[in-house]
């Protein structure tokens, strides 16, 4: 590799300086003079692309097989597994939960992330303590926290205790919040067995995921707000802008890139989701908190239905790549 660099340097000496050419052309020429770098990306390519593309290929193969138990495939059945998946209400149910999850998590996580970041960029005592508390949930393993969350949401757990003893349920009953929620067919703010009900299990999984990922959104927003020029905010303030006005018209537009990045990440996370729903509800009760991840796991591991699981995996891959491409095109169009 060292020899390549020397020869590139030699060639560079002979090239006349291209003062009349455009900057893009000059950049392209400089790129050509760089030492070859394929060897440097090879290990990463072999590791990630090698392993993962093999897995995709093997799933593709399995998805055309009628297979019970064996890892090596079975009889060829064409696209039957895909047909079965697309006509299965469980698949569409999991997809619906994925979409709800994506919308709610994105909305709350981005909203709260921006608010927390803006607050911690203001004059606050003990800012480090708040930062650590907000980010901590992102650090701890879902597998470790799941039993803790199961306790939090248990019938005799702290959440129900807070709702009852701090009179939050009473408050929501009396100011009409629960009346509105009831008419929207949403779960009310009241002590209940959160994990065992079909009406609340998805909500719990979403809540726990929000709890564990706000910190990540917060860190990104905190960093990108650090790059806003203080003079700009000062100027807006002199022009009479209020705090909410500055947040909406100045801060939010300047963290737009982070918002889009988080939307793409959340879409992928929603499609990949496994740990929390598996560990907290096993996708239940009656599949009300089932996601593609838990669905594939059930088919592949519990039912050893590898052909069908392979078809689901390929569908998931298509959805994930489709979602990322659509969203990045959408984000580029806006620029």
């Amino acid at each position, binding site marked *: 590799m060292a020899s390549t660099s020397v020869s590139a340097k030699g060639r560079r000496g002979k090239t006349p300086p291209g003062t009349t050419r455009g900057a893009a052309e000059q950049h392209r020429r400089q790129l050509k003079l760089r030492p070859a770098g394929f060897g*440097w990306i090879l290990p990463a390519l072999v590791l990630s692309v090698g392993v993962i593309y093999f*897995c995709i290929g093997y799933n593709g193969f399995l998805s055309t097989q009628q297979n019970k138990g064996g890892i090596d495939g079975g009889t060829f059945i064409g696209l039957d597994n895909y047909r079965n998946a697309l006509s299965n209400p469980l698949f569409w149910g999991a997809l619906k939960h994925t979409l709800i999850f994506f919308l709610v998590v994105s909305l709350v996580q981005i909203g709260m992330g921006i608010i927390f970041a803006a*607050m*911690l960029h203001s004059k606050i005592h003990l800012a480090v303590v708040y930062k650590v508390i907000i980010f901590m949930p992102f650090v*701890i393993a879902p597998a470790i926290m799941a039993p803790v969350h199961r306790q*939090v949401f248990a019938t005799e757990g702290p959440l129900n205790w807070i709702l009852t003893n701090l009179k939050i349920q009473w408050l929501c009953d009396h100011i009409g919040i629960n009346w509105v929620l009831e008419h929207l067919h949403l779960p009310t703010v009241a002590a209940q067995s959160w994990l065992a009900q079909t009406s609340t299990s998805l909500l719990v999984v979403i809540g726990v995921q929000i709890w564990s990922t706000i910190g990540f959104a917060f860190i990104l927003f905190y960093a990108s707000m650090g790059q806003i020029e203080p003079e700009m905010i000062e100027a807006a303030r002199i022009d009479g802008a209020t705090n909410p006005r500055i947040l909406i018209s100045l801060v939010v537009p300047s963290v737009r890139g982070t918002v889009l990045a988080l939307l793409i990440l959340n879409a992928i996370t929603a499609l990949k989701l496994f740990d929390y729903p598996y560990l907290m509800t096993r996708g239940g009760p009656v599949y009300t908190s089932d996601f593609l991840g838990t669905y594939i796991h059930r088919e*592949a591991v519990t039912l050893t239905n590898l052909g069908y699981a392979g078809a689901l995996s390929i569908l998931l891959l298509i959805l994930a790549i489709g979602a990322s491409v659509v969203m990045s095109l959408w984000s580029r169009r806006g620029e």
Partner: protein
Amino acid sequence: MFDVRSKVSQAILQLLLTLMVIPFVVPLYTMIAGSFKGQGWGNYKAVVSVKMFPYFFRNSAFIAICTIALVYATTMMAAYGFSKLRIPKREVFFWMMMACLTLPEVVLLAPLFKMAAGAGLYNTFWAVIIPISALQVPFTVLLTRTYVDGIPDELFEAARIDGAGTIRMFWNVLIPLTKPMAVAVVVLVLINAWNSYLLPLIFLMDPSYQVVTLLPQYFQGQYNDDQTKVMAGAVLTALPEIIAYISLQRFFERGMAAGALK
């Protein structure tokens, strides 16, 4: 961001923020309070005296260290190649790699099983380290490449004019300049390797190969669902990560900021 000139509005902001972080504290409080219920420190003693307990930590640490080393080395090399060297059709390779970002572990189970069984890696740590690394590399390459793109080309050109080869430039220019990013990569990979649950669950059969994320299940089996022991185990498992994060917090933020904001 918010303009709080008067003492009163400052106090209101502080109070509001404190109220808003309560939901973050409740589960952590539940975990710690739960771990002391009943026998108090006795719960911790019981957990620590389980014969397998040190193995869980040793195994997780081994997996985390190997994964970090593998991901760090391949990521730095790839970021250098993508950003500063000549690769024909490099964006094609880059996006091939980025497509891997979309895949969850659960999709890999059956093919990995096939691969691990074929290579004789089933029930070895490599059956966990290699797939975790494979899933981490696309994201760390994305972050690090963005970061390295921000380092001026002139620095590398100057080094080359001084006679440095590609390898020298990697060691003497790239590695020192990417330190903040390195911390972010290490912390992210540490979190993901230490927290990985499904792959160890499926691929490590031997009881002495179990990892910390399997502790709650182990205790649930061991202590007949005695939640106080499960909570004590949870505190002990979360502790190394919390310490690692708090001590690296500043660097981590700087690295994330630099890598993720372009």
